[in-house]
């Protein structure tokens, strides 16, 4: 049985290897009006894996398009926003072209990064599915407290693979992004 699961896991990893995000929607928060400033646009635009950034005034968000074939780095996006003097209120990634099977506490590699799914149930992802990053500092403190309770794994608190994830084949201390739908 265990061998079958391992095979399934390897297959999943292999399937996921070709997948990559194409777009993102980012909401920023701060003491001053985030949309009233061009700083976030400029900071995100400077990232090598970002092709374009467009302010969406009506939704108070930024539509980000990623460069084809480049590794998407959510931590780098967060740092850019913070260096501009703001914080990430919400970051949603999507446009993943290949169908992906996910489930609660499943670890999936998208691009070169590991994504740990929380509170999603068993489902298939498609290009329109928005994945919301729920790690600390990617959502509000209140939201984090609530959603982090949905998994028993420690990694959600640290953002790094702990002993909880190594069973899924993730090297210890590797960066693990936590996401929900």
């Amino acid at each position, binding site marked *: 049985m265990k061998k079958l699961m391992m095979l399934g896991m390897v297959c999943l990893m292999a399937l996921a290897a070709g997948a990559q995000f194409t777009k993102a929607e980012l909401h920023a928060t701060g003491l001053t009006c985030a*949309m*009233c400033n*061009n700083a976030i646009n400029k900071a995100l635009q400077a990232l090598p894996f970002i092709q374009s950034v467009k*302010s969406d005034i009506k939704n108070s968000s930024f539509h980000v398009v990623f460069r084809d074939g480049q590794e998407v780095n959510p931590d780098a996006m967060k740092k850019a926003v913070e260096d501009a003097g703001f914080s990430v209120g919400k970051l949603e990634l999507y446009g993943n072209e290949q169908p992906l099977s996910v489930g609660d506490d499943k670890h999936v590699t998208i691009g070169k990064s590991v994504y740990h799914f929380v509170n999603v149930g068993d489902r298939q992802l498609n290009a329109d599915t928005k994945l919301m990053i729920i790690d600390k500092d990617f959502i509000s403190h209140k939201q984090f407290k609530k959603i982090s309770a949905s998994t028993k794994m420690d990694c959600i608190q640290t953002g790094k693979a702990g002993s909880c994830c190594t069973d899924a084949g993730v090297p210890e201390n590797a960066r693990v992004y936590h996401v929900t739908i």
Partner: protein
Amino acid sequence: MKIYQIITSLALLLQVAAVNAQQAPRGQEVPNIADPRLQVKLPDVNGDSLSLISYKGKVVLLDFWASWCMPCRAANKKLVKIYSKYKDKGFEVYGVSLDEEQKDWVKAIAKDKITWLQVREHGNAWEAKVAQQWAISAIPTSFLINKKGDIVAMNLESDELEKAVKELLEE
């Protein structure tokens, strides 16, 4: 007469305007709206264009804003009061909106009871030529211009603005 401090942003403005590596005339350290690099001529709500330079001789506030910018809308409230008080004494406002939608812009003008000139460049807000020309990276941003066309202060609001306008009108 109090000389207002030229903030480093103005030096930056001069740099932005000097893209063609042409030097400012000797002895002129303060940007003036007569400088061809600082020309602004944009359409109002009816499509008629009026240039910034046509206001020379008055005390002018060049005001960058947008309908969706909440701090800008708050600043409008105070500006409306200052405008009505000093307009007949020679104070004018040249308002430039970064709105991308005509209807949002028109709606805000009516709601805020703006009676001064409002212009807008069609196209993308931050990428608008006028925004690049004046190095606008955040709004609200405003420039206070004296009767000679010299840009003497930036981002004055409310009481500070009123005080400055009053003094410049007396020059």
